[in-house]
C-alpha cells in the first residue's frame, strides 16, 4: 500500500533536525548558512538540499507566534513531474508511492521543474553537467540510500522528536489527520494533500494558512497529467487524418492542375 507522511504544523518546533538528517543520510554537502524570513535557511530547497523548514511569524489573537513547516517533494499520487519527463527519468514506485529520479536518463531539460505544482525539483546550477535534485522519500532501488524497503521510515521522520512528522499508510494517516482536525477547533478544516493536484503522499494539517509556507492558493484537485493527456490523445488521430487529407489533396489539386494546363494548351479559358 502507498506510504505517506503526516506533517502536523502545530507540533513542529522548528529544530531543523529533519533537515540535517536528510543531508546526512543522502550525502548532501552543507553550505555557508543563509537565511530569509528570520530562521528559514537556506531560503529554499536547492541542488544540495532536498528539504527545508520554512518559518513564518503569524499574528494569532493579538499575539505573535512562530510557525514552521518542513517542505519537500509531496510524492504526488499523479505526479506532474513524472508525466512531464520525456526521458522517463522520473518514476513513481508503485509499491511505496515514492517519486524517484534516475539521473542516468535525465537530459536536463528542466520541464519537470516547471510542471511541478509545488516547485520542488531543483537544479545543480553550478555543475558542468547538472542534475535534478529532489527528495526521494528515502527510497532507492540501487539500495545505497534506501530505508523504505527495509521497513524504516524516512530519515527525517525518524529524527523528528515532537511527532510533527508521522510515517505510515497514507489511508490511515488521512484518517488520523481528520481525527485531529475534528477534535481540535484550532485546526484549519483541510488536509493539504488530500485532494490537491490529485492527492499527495505527504499530508499537511495546520492552524495557520498553508499559503504562509509557500503552497499555491490556487492548487486544483484535478491530476495535472490529465491536462497533457487531453492534448496528446489527439496526436494519432491528427497525424493519420491530416496525413490522409494532405495526400488526397495533393493528388486532387495536382490532377486538377494537369487538366487545367491541358485545356490551357488547347486555348480554352478556365
Amino acid at each position: 500500500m502507498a506510504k505517506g507522511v503526516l506533517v502536523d504544523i502545530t507540533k513542529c518546533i522548528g529544530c531543523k533536525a529533519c533537515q540535517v538528517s536528510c543531508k546526512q543520510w543522502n550525502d548532501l554537502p552543507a553550505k555557508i548558512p543563509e537565511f530569509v524570513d528570520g530562521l528559514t535557511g537556506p531560503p529554499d530547497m536547492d541542488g544540495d538540499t532536498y528539504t527545508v523548514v520554512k518559518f513564518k511569524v503569524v499574528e494569532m489573537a493579538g499575539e505573535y507566534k512562530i510557525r514552521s513547516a518542513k517542505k519537500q517533494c509531496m510524492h504526488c499520487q499523479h505526479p506532474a513531474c513524472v508525466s512531464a519527463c520525456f526521458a522517463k527519468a522520473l518514476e513513481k514506485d508503485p509499491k511505496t508511492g515514492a517519486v524517484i529520479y534516475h539521473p542516468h536518463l535525465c537530459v536536463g531539460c528542466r520541464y519537470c521543474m516547471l510542471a511541478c505544482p509545488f516547485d520542488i525539483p531543483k537544479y545543480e546550477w553550478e555543475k558542468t553537467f547538472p542534475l535534478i535534485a529532489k527528495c526521494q522519500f528515502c527510497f532507492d532501488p540501487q539500495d545505497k540510500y534506501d530505508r523504505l524497503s527495509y521497513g524504516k521510515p524516512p530519515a527525517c521522520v525518524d529524527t523528528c522528536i515532537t511527532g510533527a512528522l508521522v510515517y505510515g499508510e497514507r489511508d490511515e494517516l488521512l484518517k488520523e489527520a481528520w481525527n485531529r482536525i475534528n477534535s481540535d477547533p484550532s485546526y484549519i478544516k483541510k488536509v493539504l494533500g488530500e485532494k490537491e493536484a490529485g492527492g499527495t503522499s505527504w499530508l499537511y494539517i495546520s492552524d495557520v494558512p498553508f499559503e504562509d509556507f509557500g503552497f499555491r492558493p490556487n492548487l486544483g484537485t484535478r491530476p495535472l497529467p490529465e491536462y497533457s493527456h487531453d492534448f496528446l490523445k489527439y496526436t494519432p488521430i491528427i497525424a493519420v487524418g491530416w496525413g490522409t487529407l494532405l495526400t488526397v489533396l495533393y493528388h486532387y489539386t495536382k490532377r486538377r492542375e494537369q487538366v487545367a494546363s491541358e485545356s490551357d494548351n488547347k486555348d480554352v479559358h478556365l
Partner: protein
Amino acid sequence: MSADKGLFQEIAAYKWKFTMTTARKILILLAGLGVVCMLYRLATGLGSATNLNDQWPWGLWIGFDVLTGVALAGGGYGTAIIVHVLHRNKYLAIARSAMLTSLLGYLLVMAGLFMDIGQWFNFWRPFVSWGHTSVLFEVFWCVSCYTTVQVLEFGEIVTEKVGTKYHNFFKKALPVLMVLGIIFPTLHQSSLGALYVIMVDKLYPLWWSPYIGLMFLMSSFFVGPAMICVETALAGKAFKHEVPISVLRGLVRIAGVFMILYLGLKFYDLAARGVVNLIFAGNLEGNMFMAEIILGVMIPVYIAFSSMSNTRKGLITFGILVSGGLIFNRMNVVFTGMSAALGGWYFPSIMEWAVSIGLISIGCLVYCFIAENFNILVHEDHQGAST
C-alpha cells in the same frame, strides 16, 4: 565508392561564391562571439554562463531561440501546404526561400536546445527511453523528424547543382517528404504551446488555455506570410529579387483569415473561462495582453484587408507587426505570464544574449551563402527552367 569520389570532386570543383560586405563582416564577428560563448557554456555549465535559476529554469534560449524560433520558421510548412499540396503555383516564387529559412531556423533551434539542456551528451535518451506522457516527448520527436525531412527536401535543391545524379531520387521522394513535412510541424507547433497546459496553476489565465496548443499552431501558420514579407523585403534589397505584390498580397490575405479565426478562438476561450475582465485589470499582464492582441493581430488584420496591402510599405508593416506580435506573444507566455507564479528574478546574461544573437548571425550568413550558390530566389525569367 567511386561514385562518392565523383561527388567529392564535384563539390570541390563547383565554383562557390561568397561576397564580402560590411554587414556580413559584422555578422561574422557576432557569430564568432556567439561560438566562443557557446564553447564556454559547454565547458563550464549553465550556472556560470546564464542567469537561469531554480525559480526560472527556462529563459531566453527556450523562450526565444526555441519557442519563437520554431514559430518564425513555420513559414516553411505553411508555404508547403499552399504550394505543394494545394498547388497554388503562383506562390512558387517564394516557396524555396521560405523552405530554406525554415530549415535554417530549425537547425538553429536544435543548436539552441543543445545549449540549454544540462546533460547534452544525453540528448538522444528520449529516442530510446520513451516518456510518452510528456508533451515535450512529442515536441522532441517531431522537431527531430521534421529537421531530417527538411534536410532531405533541401537535397533536391542541392542536387540541381552538386551531385546531380542523385537529383531524380530526391525529386521522386519529394511528395512523400512534403506530406511528412507538414504533419510533423502541425504536431509540434501545437505541442510547443501545449507544453504549458500542465502549468495550469502557474501560467496567467490570459495565456493559459486548454486550446493553447491550437493557438500556437494557428499563430505559427499566419506568421509565415508575415515572415515572407519581411524576408523578401530584405532579400529583395540584397539579391535584387523582387516578389510581385500580388503574390505577397494573396499570402497576407490567407494569413488575415487565420488571424481572424485566431482572434475568435482567443475571445471564445477567454469568455468560456470567464476571464475576459482580466484584460482590463490594468495590471502588467492585462496591458501586455492587450498590446499583443491590438498591435500583433488586430491592426495587421486591418492592413491585410484594406488597400494598404497593395503597397510594399503596407506589406512590410504587416510583416513586422505580425512577426513582432508573435515574438511578443511567446515572450508573454514564457516570461510575463509566468512571473507572478515563479517569483524571483531573471534577466538573460550577456552570454545568453551573445549566444542567441550569434546563432541568428550564423543563420543569416548561411542563408546568404546558400542563396548565392543555389536556386533559391527564383527569378521570373528562370522560373520555367528551374521548376
